[in-house]
């Protein structure tokens, strides 16, 4: 009977045990506090039931007790805060060499593209034991990419990228849910995360057709004319993009920003927002001229210009900036 009455989600990522540990601690703490308070109340209710001839004893209060039951809970709360913050910090700091997967959300489906080029719809295949970073955007309203088994969730916004990362630990198929109400078929915007062993994953990868996202991006870079200004020899009217990803950039208004995913995206969609020092704001606006998927390929291409040849791609520190900062 117990196995048919599941009370606990599967845990299939490196974060799951940490999140579960804090949850169990909080549950135990809550049980202790609840049982404790209930017990004290019940004892008092019984012991001090109204009896003829026995009056209540007027008691004003006790400063010691007040301080005690303010300071001790506060200290416990600070402990819980710190513990939760540490987990959160880990969740928000993808490892440097994560595989990258681009997600485009739209009402009511998840369009997924691996940087190696495979496309999926409402499914995400990943190998076990590999760090995976999701770079996500929405075509319409706010959605949220939620994998309960990995204990991760991140809202997916239109007009910018948001990220989350995980490392899966157990092969299997796990739920993918949209967790931000997005209209009629919000509850239908679900899918599967399929964690495969390394050999199975490679077999699955081999079945793909077409080039990597970076190579599609490279093709677009040519066909959209980007290459005419952004020359690798830095002789063009635009800055060279080789090696810029993940590094600080000095802007013409004196600010310095890190060239993260949102920076690259914004530079394509709204170039005047951040103009590199020493260059004129003459880059045309590509908002409305490229789809989110094409944008993702271009971003992947620019990022590929910063990685060591072959092997893993590098990831910039998880962006803190919005397109407007």
């Amino acid at each position, binding site marked *: 009977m117990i196995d048919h009455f599941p009370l606990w989600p599967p845990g299939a990522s490196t974060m799951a045990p940490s999140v579960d540990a804090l949850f169990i601690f909080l549950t135990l703490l809550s049980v202790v506090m609840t049982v404790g*308070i209930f017990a004290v109340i019940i004892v008092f209710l019984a012991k001090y039931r109204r009896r003829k001839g026995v009056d209540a004893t007027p*008691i004003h*209060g006790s400063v010691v*007790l007040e301080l005690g039951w303010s300071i001790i809970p*506060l200290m416990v709360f600070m402990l819980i805060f710190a513990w939760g913050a540490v987990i959160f910090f880990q969740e928000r700091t993808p490892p440097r060499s994560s595989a990258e997967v681009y997600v485009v959300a739209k009402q009511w489906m998840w369009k997924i593209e691996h940087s190696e080029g495979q496309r999926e719809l409402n499914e995400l295949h990943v190998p076990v034991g590999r760090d995976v970073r999701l770079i996500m955007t929405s075509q319409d309203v706010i959605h949220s990419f939620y994998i309960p088994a990995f*204990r991760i969730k991140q809202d997916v*916004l239109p007009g910018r990228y948001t990220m989350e990362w995980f490392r899966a630990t157990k092969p299997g198929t796990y739920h993918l849910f949209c967790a931000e*109400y997005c209209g*009629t078929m919000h509850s239908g915007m679900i899918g599967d995360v399929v964690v495969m062993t390394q050999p199975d994953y490679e077999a699955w990868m081999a079945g793909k057709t077409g080039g990597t996202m970076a190579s599609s991006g490279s093709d677009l870079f040519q066909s959209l004319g980007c290459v005419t200004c952004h020359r690798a020899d830095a002789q063009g009217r635009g800055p060279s993009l080789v090696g810029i990803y993940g590094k600080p950039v000095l802007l013409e208004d004196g600010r310095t920003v890190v060239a993260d995913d949102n920076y690259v995206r914004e530079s394509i969609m709204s170039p005047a927002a951040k103009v590199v020092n020493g260059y004129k704001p003459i880059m045309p606006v590509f908002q409305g001229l490229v789809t989110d998927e094409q944008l993702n390929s271009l971003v992947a291409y620019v990022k590929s210009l910063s990685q060591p040849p072959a092997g893993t791609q590098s990831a910039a520190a998880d962006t803190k900036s919005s397109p407007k900062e």
Partner: protein
Amino acid sequence: MATAAVSAERETYLNKEYGIRSWLLTTDHKRIALLYLASITLFFFIGGFFALLIRLELLTPAGDLVLADTYNKLFTMHGQIMVFFFLIPSIPAVLGNFLVPMMIGAKDLALPRINLLSWYLYIAGGALMLYAMVEGGVDTGWTFYTPFSTAFSNTHVVEAGLAIFIAGFSSILTGLNFVVTIHRMRAPGMTWSRLPLFIWAHYATSIIQLLGTPVLAITLVLVVLERTLHLGIFDPNLGGDPLLFQHLFWFYSHPAVYIMILPAMGVVSEVLACFSRKRIFGYAAVAMSSIGIAVIGFIVWAHHMFVAGISLYAALVFSILSYLVAVPSAIKVFNWTATLYKGSISFATPMLYALGFIGLFTIGGLTGLFLAALGIDVHVTDTYFVIAHFHYIMVGGAVMGYMAGLHFWWPKITGRMYPEWWGRLAALIVFVGFNLTFFPQFILGYMGMPRRYWEYPPEFQILNVMSTAGSTILAVGYLLPMVYFMWSLRYGKVVGDNPWGAAGLEWKTSSPPPTFNFDETPEVTWEAYNYDQIPVPEEAWLE
């Protein structure tokens, strides 16, 4: 309105004048309280009906009772009606309106005509909301997130937004009235430190209503403008920022939850003191904790946005502040518990509800600690865990506080006692039904079931069935008081000034009170909760 059967000579606020005009044009705070009682009860049952439909749909994993769009409208309107047209007004507009002047020894609120205006604004907003419902409803979720609400939804967002905007002014004016009243209308000798804790709670609530609600008002105005004129303030396609909407929305809507709970905490203090026959332990701490909750409650709003796209550092700040706001609530629970020590305790219906409040609010509050922990929140936000948490506080807490207050002051308001055993039975049914409805939802949430889901994977079904079963029991528990309160108006036992032997100025005048509350303005020379000076009355319901 049914009349209380009082002796033909004595004039009360109920029999002073008859006729519909005397009610619709009244400036008597007590009559206005009853006008509110009738209207919020109507909205409670409409919102509750939507909840039942939601729970019925969720009996099965498939979406087989209503269409997806209909379901989305049901949960949206359940939330909007319950929050804006039931919970926010409930205790302040019914019990607060009736009791605040009486508890401080005044003849009326400071601004009686503004009080009537408040009610009419509430009715106007409510009418517009009903219109929006009848015309097809709204499906944005009660949180109106953009750009869905401004650029994608095909429902009556503008009407619903304006309805809430109008009702918001009702709330602002009630808050304004209470603050001014408590400052300026206290009877001689009623110093701040002699005020009942119910007054402190309403003072803190009113500060929030005054300062928070206008921000919601302007946010809704901007949403309506954006939707009708296709502006881009919150729409990324037009250069706007959807997170700006969320910040502005939650800046009000988080303090709003304290508007909903603080008055209930005030009721609990009054009821607990009376049925333990002693003053609340740590009066100053409880009074100050209400103010503390109101103040700190204004700086924690982004804990609703931990995964919305805010920065890591913002998340850390709001998490730590959210733990800070939990401290004053904990203080109250401990002080209430300590009040029972060496008391003389009886178990009338109000006391049962108050005790139920303490238990359920404790559980709801503890689960708030889970949500404030960043690492946990990432997993459980936007799931049934959050739904369970806030229903424990708002239903297990606020609604039970409201029921406690209604039962406690019913004899004062009507001059009649409700049937005590039915009251106790209903309280028990509510407690059982509530826990069965909402406890499984904690488990559902951690398992990963997202909120606002019309259909769900089959492994979530058993817990959903339990929850729906509980909701039918809960419904019975709420219908019973409707019936017996109405019954009591004609057949309930007639009571005197102070059937409970309670402390407080409202009990020193007749039940029901005369129009100007007191035959002579009281002069206060005693501390609050002077139960050592008040004998226990010999009444059957105090056993």
